[in-house]
């Protein structure tokens, strides 16, 4: 796509019919969790959209976020969106290496001052910046330098959004989130370990369509995707309401698809779109596969108790919320609540000591 073309002109030059474009807009609106009635508005905005420059920085990460995105299930829509942005730097995906690659990053920043989108995956080590460097430049310096001229930052993955696994106790590198360092730019946290690929693309599509920052929740996440919790959207919710829980992964309850709350499901405190957008070509999501949610899109999820401990036994949220969760467990006849209180008392005593 030429820089002087808008998306509508580009698609027509590629032989995409108006029907194809309307289909693209329907899929994009669905991707952005917009109502179908917004398709006409999306079509009008997308047809006139200009190609934004994107600089993608990967810091302390496992490349799972990029893997998630590049393995996503809708290549037609994805590739059109990627054609419609100018991905000027991504050191995992780009062919260029060494000084040429770094020069491309600098050039993109210079040419698109104040307009480019900075995508970051991975956390930033601040105890000793030498723990993670690119081309001899520390992650900290590269982030500060690249952020100063950007329009907005998209922190992709829980590492960039909240510190993630590198930031888990004892946090040997002093890993922090993007928002701990950059405080004068809009930051959109697309958390998840990894995030749902279409959520990453959906945020890029929002920029492309509207050129604005999407509405965010208190943790800086787009409410279109993180506005509701897994539990409220979970198809197993009716079992929770009836107090029907799987007690082990192979008991009768598990076979009947009962609620996984007592097996450690963190759905009630996790905000993400897994239950509706789903994974693997829309095939399912962890709870549908019989495993509880591990709250991978929530801050400090690694440090908040075992993945297989019921919510009431962990360290989620405030003490009041925790006692509330324990009360719910008790009301549902969950023996785990009693263990929760005992373990919580022990944990609090240890913390005070």
């Amino acid at each position, binding site marked *: 796509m030429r820089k002087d073309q808008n998306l509508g002109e580009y698609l*027509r030059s590629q032989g*995409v*019919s*108006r*029907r*194809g474009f*309307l*289909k*693209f807009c*329907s*899929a994009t609106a*669905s*991707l952005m*969790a917009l*109502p*179908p*009635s917004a*398709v006409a508005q999306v079509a009008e905005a997308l047809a006139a959209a200009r190609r934004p420059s994107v600089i993608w920085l990967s810091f302390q990460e496992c490349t799972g976020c990029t893997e998630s995105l590049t393995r996503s*299930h*809708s*290549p*037609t*829509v994805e590739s*059109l969106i990627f054609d419609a942005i100018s991905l000027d730097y991504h050191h995992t995906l780009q062919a260029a290496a060494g000084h040429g690659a770094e020069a491309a990053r600098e050039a993109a920043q210079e040419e698109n001052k104040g307009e480019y989108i900075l995508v970051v995956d991975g956390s930033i080590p601040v105890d000793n910046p030498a723990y993670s460097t690119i081309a001899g430049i520390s992650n900290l310096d590269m982030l500060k330098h690249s952020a100063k001229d950007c329009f907005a930052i998209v922190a992709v993955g829980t590492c960039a959004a909240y510190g993630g696994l590198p930031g888990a106790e004892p946090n040997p590198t002093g890993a922090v989130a993007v928002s701990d360092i950059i405080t004068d730019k809009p930051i959109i946290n697309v958390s998840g370990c990894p995030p749902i690929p279409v959520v990453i693309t959906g945020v890029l599509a929002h920029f492309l369509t509207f050129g604005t920052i999407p509405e965010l929740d208190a943790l800086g996440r787009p409410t279109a995707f993180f506005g509701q919790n897994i539990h409220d*959207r*979970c*198809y*197993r*919710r*009716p*079992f929770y309401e009836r107090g029907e829980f799987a007690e082990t992964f192979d008991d009768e309850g598990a*076979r*009947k*698809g009962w609620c996984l709350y007592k097996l450690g499901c963190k759905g009630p405190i996790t905000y993400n779109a897994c*239950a*509706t*957008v789903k994974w693997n*070509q*829309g095939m*399912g999501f962890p709870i*549908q596969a019989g495993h509880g949610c591990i709250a991978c899109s929530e801050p400090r999820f690694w440090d908040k108790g075992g993945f297989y401990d019921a919510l009431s036994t962990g360290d989620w949220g405030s003490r009041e919320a925790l006692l509330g969760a324990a009360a719910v467990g008790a009301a549902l006849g969950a023996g785990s609540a009693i263990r929760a209180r005992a373990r919580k008392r022990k944990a609090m005593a240890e913390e005070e000591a």
Partner: protein
Amino acid sequence: MSSLDTIPVTTEVATGNVAPLLHEIRHALKRLTGGEEGTSIDLKSLPLAPGEEERIEATLGTGEVRAEVDALGPTLIQETSYPGVWLITHKNVDDAVVARFIEVTFIPELLRSQPEDIDAGIDRLENELGS
């Protein structure tokens, strides 16, 4: 039968969302015949248990019209056994479903020839005829 089918897992899960969705379709049909605009429902927007989407599809059944649009991958457009209720499945070039809608309308927009495409067609025809 594949080996996966032999695993004794049953799904007796129901979200309770199937009946309300069918009522929503009924209300949308009444609005349509009452002169109001059509309605589009994104099937991804509400929680459905495994098998419930198939249950909705089975309840709606298949009607007289079935069309396939070949644009950025196939799009299947099926009128259900309830006239005015269309099931639209957008697939990508790899045949994977990218979006699914139920549209309550006289004719889905995607089936109409689009003015931009007609203009492009006129240009091509004129080139062909050398006029």
